[in-house]
């Protein structure tokens, strides 16, 4: 296993009447992308802000690169890059100047900086927009600039706090590809999101958080096993399907059957090629359907299983 880059133990952060982070303990390992997945208000950003010493916390220990992290830990900060949820750039500066300003807080040499800025702009696909002001950029391009400002100094540890909120699919893919490249280049990434697809697509390991507590952690595949669902088959029914429900329930490995608004959803607890049985049943009973498809369980199913609510509630 790789070296620990971050060690958090027993982290507690309380606001007046709210325990926003409730005894969080976890580690982040070198060169991995760790996903922090949870609904809005679950404590993801608060945890990141505590780790970065922007927020005071009530209890717990935080170590980064094997050293205690504090507001004056400038040696540690030199190796950290942060991309906040809100776009943090100056409207008055051009794309190039923005990246240069923030990179300049870490790198003194102008020549090195020039090279780094070029590389950061290429990574996020903004090399043609150097002289643009932020207000001239689309939402997606602005998010990419936000990322370039946070990673231009080539940090070893990068925090990305929901960097793809309100971003178009093209920019989102560009951002996710860029993050993978950063990891491949040797950086460790902590990525918070409430988009389960992103977490699945991007992260080596995922921590699911709710109400300030870790409710599960592991790889995407290991987490999905917690959902107790192996396969979910959905049928868009055009005929009378109610009579089929008792017969479907008798099939092997069927956990649950729900029929609502013309959609029949069958959850299987075992196996992954059950769609043939369902098709046979519909045909033999002469019940018509428009569409039938099979899905593997998602992290949302895991969250639903563990908390009883949807991830996006």
């Amino acid at each position, binding site marked *: 296993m790789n070296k620990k880059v971050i060690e958090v133990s027993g982290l507690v952060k309380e*606001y007046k009447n709210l325990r926003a982070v409730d005894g969080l303990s976890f580690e982040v390992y070198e060169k991995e992308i760790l996903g922090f997945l949870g609904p809005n208000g679950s404590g993801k950003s608060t945890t990141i*802000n505590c780790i*970065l*010493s*922007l*927020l*005071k916390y009530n209890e717990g220990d935080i170590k980064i690169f094997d050293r205690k992290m504090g*507001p*004056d830990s*400038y*040696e540690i*900060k*030199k190796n*950290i890059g*942060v991309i*906040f949820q*809100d*776009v*943090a*750039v*100056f409207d*008055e*500066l051009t794309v190039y*100047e923005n990246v240069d*300003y*923030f990179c*300049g*807080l*870490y790198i*003194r040499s102008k020549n090195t900086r020039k090279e780094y800025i070029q590389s950061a702009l290429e990574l996020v696909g903004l090399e043609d927009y150097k002289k643009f002001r932020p207000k001239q950029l689309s939402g997606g391009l602005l998010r990419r600039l936000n990322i370039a*400002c*946070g990673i231009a100094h080539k940090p070893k540890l990068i925090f990305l706090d929901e960097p793809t909120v309100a971003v178009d699919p093209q920019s989102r893919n560009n951002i996710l590809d860029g993050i993978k490249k950063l990891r491949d280049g040797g950086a460790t990434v902590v990525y918070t999101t409430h988009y389960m697809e992103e977490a699945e697509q991007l992260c080596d390991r995922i921590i699911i958080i709710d109400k300030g507590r870790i409710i599960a952690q592991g790889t995407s595949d290991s987490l999905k096993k917690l959902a107790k669902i192996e396969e979910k088959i959905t049928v868009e029914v055009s005929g009378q399907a109610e009579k089929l429900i008792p017969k479907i329930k008798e099939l092997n490995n069927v956990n649950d059957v729900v029929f609502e608004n013309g959609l029949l959803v069958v959850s299987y607890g075992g196996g992954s090629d059950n769609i043939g049985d369902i098709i046979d049943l519909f045909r033999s009973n002469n019940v018509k359907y428009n569409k039938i498809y099979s899905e593997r369980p998602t992290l949302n199913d895991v969250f639903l299983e563990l908390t009883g609510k949807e991830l996006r509630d």
Partner: protein
Amino acid sequence: MFIHNFKYSLKILFRSKSLVFWTLAFPLIMAVLFNAAFSNIENSENFEPIDIAVVKSDDFEKNIIFKESLKFLSDKSSDKRFFDIEYTNLEKAEELLFDEKITGYLVFEGEDVSVTVNSSGINETILRYVSDEIKSIGGLTENIGKERISELIMSGNTDIDYERIFTNISKDIINEKQNIKDISTENMSYVMIEYYSLIAMTCMYSGILSMVLVNFKSANMCAVGKRSAVSPVKKIGMIMGSLVSGYVVQMLCILLMFLFTIFVIGVDYGENLPMTVLLSIVGSLAGLSMGVAVGTLVKKGDNAKTTILISITMAGCFLSGMMGITMKNIIDKNVPFLNMINPVAMITDGLYALYYNEQFNRVWFDIISLLIFTVVMMFISWRGLRRQTYDSL
């Protein structure tokens, strides 16, 4: 790092349209408006001496206070001449009043003086006011005279020239009264009062620059502040680089303000222009420090802070007489403490003193007051300036 912050802060300030408007364009626009609004008023209000008559009598001859005062106020060689006086008898005075050749006449009976006018207007009011003022000087003269005579008697001097004592005291008081008027703002031109307030306002607007710059470095204020806070640079170092750039921009605004008012509008700041500029430089420092205090102590957004800062500045301008010099006099008389802590009043007070050329002590007092104000503002902001970790964001 200092230069890096300084350079980019300059770029940000110069390119920010709202900052350029408030710190540079707005004062210049105000200067143009003041010039258009007040210069004509002033020209139309050039004071013409008022024609009055004094009924000659023994009682008038004995009333030294009135005699000396009226002589002073009708001195044709003085630019402070109030009256053109005709010394005559009662019949002639009535005839002149009837023919509207005079505004009114004074009649002396014993120690009493009666003022006769046949209408009400500004000149009639001035005549009555001056008459009352001279009467009050008379009371003062009497008191001081009694004291001086007592002193002479106590020292064993029995050969006392009472008339000479009262004449000297009267002259002293009249001169002193005139001096008191000189150092007040009553005789100052409207336009100069407005320009001085404008300079003070421009100085205080430097607070907007510093407030914005402090916000950019504070994690609890904006996203850019958060990004700066996680960088490996000490916050206070970053802020100092930015504040110096803010001060440079402010100096440029002040310079342009002076150049514009002197060469375009034609304002004459008198012989003490260097001291006027010095006062503005120190005043800008006070403005800058106030912006730092609002930036660090007020937990609101940029717009709310700008509103607060502009409101404080405008309130300061109002209390120091920008919207009517009477307000400054009222505050000085009734709540002097308010203007002692009002940086706008400190600046305008120093500028008024410079206008009268001889009040350098007062100017230095105001400069020191402004420096103390700056130190106090920075002191109360210090904790917020150094702070890097917060209870909430």
